[in-house]
């Protein structure tokens, strides 16, 4: 049955910030006094901390009861949309899919939850086996030789790739000479940002008339300074660049390495493998494509895979099997070092492992086939909506996502894509992703339905966008103030653009509010 998005209204609680809640003396948990025997043994533990590192004032934490805390966070969750409460085709390029709850249960098992990364590896054999086996599975999926799961976000995985490229050229004595990384304007911005952080100069290829860069533009920048190519394919547009094998070869002929940012891999399982295309290294986001939750900038994990010649540069330690037991190999003199503490977000890897094991190879391929089918079904339905366009070749099938353009509707009505995006939350749907930067598509909207949405979900989603388009043409002014039924009113946009209004800490918030 197609579910209606009419008559929705978000919960709207006037929740203060947790730091403003509670009152002096309130406690959520009454902690027992330290046992006398322990006290005698450790004396004052603060004595072991250097004087210069001790706080001079008392730490101010909210003083609040358990019931208040529970109420506070439940209310916040009620004012938040997410895949568990809404079919999220809106967050294009984010690959929002169902995260099986059984995998959460597995990760709450004491044998996962209560181990410590500094335990002797002999007592971590189960977890190390999962990491090792999943590495082997990832090699099968991508054709690469060896994996690391230390990086804990997509961008950190891409950064790891940049560091690996740097280490490779340094080991060849070309570290100073090869200082240019090439990327494309529709690759994820991290493909430009992270090599820049790693010390490279970054050259961005602009899209040609088909929506992806001309081969000639790549040729024009190749030289003895070329360190590598770092790209997504399909790009954010959902278009698959057919020239990638030729581009990879040209970069390698010039002495560079090619890194495949596979954050957009949800349409490629069992269809295209990074190594078969010629790439030297790649990375996947386990918290997207492999169903582990995004956790709101929290517990991500990237799988970084490399070809044999780059394996010695992977971050230490690498999980290995010596025939008898699983070991952590720290003895890696040419390693780029640590990308993150300990082994990364192991729980996220376990969720991805469980997901892959539940599907098998055929299941993975059907994930991609369904994601591509869903995406192209959605695109064909949206093509009927007034004022919405599919830039570049309309008849060319997209892979797993599409960057649409509301340019015509905006010219006709005077609205902007942001006005339309805001309206989505009046239907209980996620405000859609407009675009990464640089913003090259006019009035953009980027949608990615993944394999998790049913045809009814998609039809309902289309009907909402159609209703918004109709309303934009019949009564554009009524959209200006949207959302009306969301958990919050429209926020003043200038605050997002003004660092003076940002506060990353409570202290900064108090200072800046004055």
């Amino acid at each position: 049955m197609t579910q209606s998005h009419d008559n929705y209204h978000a919960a709207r609680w006037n929740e203060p910030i947790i730091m403003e809640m509670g009152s002096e003396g309130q406690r959520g948990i009454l902690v027992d006094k330290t046992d006398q025997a322990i006290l005698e043994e450790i004396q004052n533990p603060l004595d072991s901390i250097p004087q210069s590192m001790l706080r001079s004032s008392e730490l101010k934490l909210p003083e609040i009861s358990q019931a208040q805390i529970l109420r506070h966070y439940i209310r916040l969750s009620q004012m938040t949309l997410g895949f568990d409460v809404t079919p999220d085709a809106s967050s294009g390029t984010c690959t929002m899919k169902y995260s099986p709850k059984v995998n959460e249960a597995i990760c709450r098992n004491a044998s996962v939850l209560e181990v410590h990364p500094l335990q002797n590896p002999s007592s971590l054999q189960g977890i190390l086996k999962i990491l090792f086996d999943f590495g082997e599975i990832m090699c099968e999926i991508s054709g690469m030789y060896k994996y690391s799961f230390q990086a804990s976000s997509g961008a950190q995985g891409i950064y790891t790739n940049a560091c690996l490229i740097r280490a490779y050229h340094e080991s060849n004595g070309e570290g100073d000479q090869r200082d240019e990384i090439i990327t494309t304007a529709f690759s994820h911005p991290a493909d430009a940002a992270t090599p820049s952080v790693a010390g490279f100069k970054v050259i961005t290829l602009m899209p040609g008339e088909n929506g992806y860069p001309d081969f000639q533009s790549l040729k024009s920048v190749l030289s003895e300074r070329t360190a590598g190519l770092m790209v997504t394919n399909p790009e954010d547009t959902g278009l698959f660049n057919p020239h990638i094998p030729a581009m990879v070869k040209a970069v390698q002929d010039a002495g560079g390495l090619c890194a495949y940012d596979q954050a957009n891999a949800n349409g490629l399982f069992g269809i295209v493998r990074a190594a078969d295309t010629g790439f030297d290294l790649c990375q996947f986001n386990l918290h997207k494509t492999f169903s582990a939750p995004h956790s709101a900038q929290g517990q991500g994990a990237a799988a970084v895979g490399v070809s044999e010649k780059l394996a010695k540069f992977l971050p230490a330690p690498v999980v290995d099997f010596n025939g008898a037991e699983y070991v952590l190999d720290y003895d890696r003199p040419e390693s780029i070092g640590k990308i993150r503490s300990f082994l990364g977000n192991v729980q996220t890897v376990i969720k991805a492992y469980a997901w892959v094991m539940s599907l098998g190879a055929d299941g993975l391929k059907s994930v991609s086939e369904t994601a591509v089918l869903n995406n192209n079904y959605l695109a064909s339905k949206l093509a009927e909506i007034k004022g919405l366009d599919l830039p570049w070749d309309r008849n060319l099938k997209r892979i797993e996502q599409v960057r649409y353009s509301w340019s015509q509707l905006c010219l006709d009505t005077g609205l902007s894509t942001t006005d339309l995006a805001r309206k989505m939350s009046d239907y209980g749907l996620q405000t859609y992703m407009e675009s990464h930067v640089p913003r090259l598509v006019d009035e953009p909207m980027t949608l990615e339905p993944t394999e998790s949405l049913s045809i009814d979900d998609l039809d309902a989603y289309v009907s909402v966008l159609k209703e918004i388009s109709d309303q934009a043409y019949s009564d554009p002014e009524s959209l200006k103030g949207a959302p009306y039924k969301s958990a919050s009113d429209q926020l003043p946009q200038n605050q997002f653009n003004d660092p003076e209004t940002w506060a990353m800490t409570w202290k900064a918030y108090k200072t800046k509010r004055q």
Partner: protein
Amino acid sequence: MKKIKSTFGLIVNPISGMGGRVGLKGTDTSAIIASAIALGAKPESTIRATTCLKEIHSGLHASLDVICPPGIMGEKAAEEAGFSPTVLPMKIPDDTSAKDTRTAVEMMANAKVSLILFAGGDGTARDIYSVIKDQIPVVGIPAGVKMHSAVYATTPKSAARLVTNYFASSDANLKDVEVMDIDEDAFRNGQLSASLYGYMKVPFERRYIQGAKSGGIESDESAMSAVAHEISRRLEDDVLYILGPGTTLKAIGNQLGVDKTLLGVDLFQDGKLIAEDVTNLQIEEIIANCNKKVKIIVTPIGGQGHIFGRGNQQISPSIIKRLGRESVMIVATTNKLASLNGRPFLVDTGDPDVDQLLSGYIRVVTGINMESVYRVSD
């Protein structure tokens, strides 16, 4: 009582654009206007202004006040669109001229309008610029024959959108864009000689502003300062730099601690300007006598993409030929590249060989450690 913020000035250049359809390349003199009318030219600017104004009127902002000159210079279009304009106390002749535009703009400035909407071409933009410089934001409804300036919206409707967005938002962004014009007589004789007259402020088109959700938030100003920072890092001692005109180059000057002229070509070497606002002959003389490495730094014109031949003719084809393609550094913010909508850079140096020399892919410095590669048209 209505606030001052909700008042905008309107100027329609009634003869603007008349030359275009009949092949006369502009209407700067009354003799040309007469021949345009004789050739059957129609007052397209009024039609275009009315389209735009209707769009503004139908929006929330029907309550906006309009101040305009009488009759065909604004009143007619405003009333046709449904506004009840405040008409400026001035008399206009049947054959309106640049003087009438300037008079109207002065009166609008005195009335403290917050924006001037005009329908016209480069001549009109120049006349407005001569009175208000960059003190009052403008929006151009494209209606002229010559539109080399970057003050125009893409269509009358998108002009309406810029105006309504400007008045609707509490945090309207403005940017400086080029006011250019060409010498019409020379153009009619087959020569194109475009000059950069200055910069006016226009509302920043939303589509080029990054959305709040996209994470990286960069104003035009900060993007330009990143470009300037990168260039200042790359400059070498003992090299003579020819710095073209424009706000990007001005920002580079600021980064280098020198007072770069906005509209002129300046020469820079070892931390200081050695010559300002130079002519092509001066450049040629200086580089002939300096036996140093010489490099050229220029930026494309926003929205239309010329890197040579518009506003920087001082850097003559013979200079470019002598220094070679590898001596040319192009600088631009990514937003500026995006504003070209995929169209290539243009060159029109006056020497086809040099234009050919510059064609093909060229690197563009877009930020700190960031470059792009962009095609120069054949």
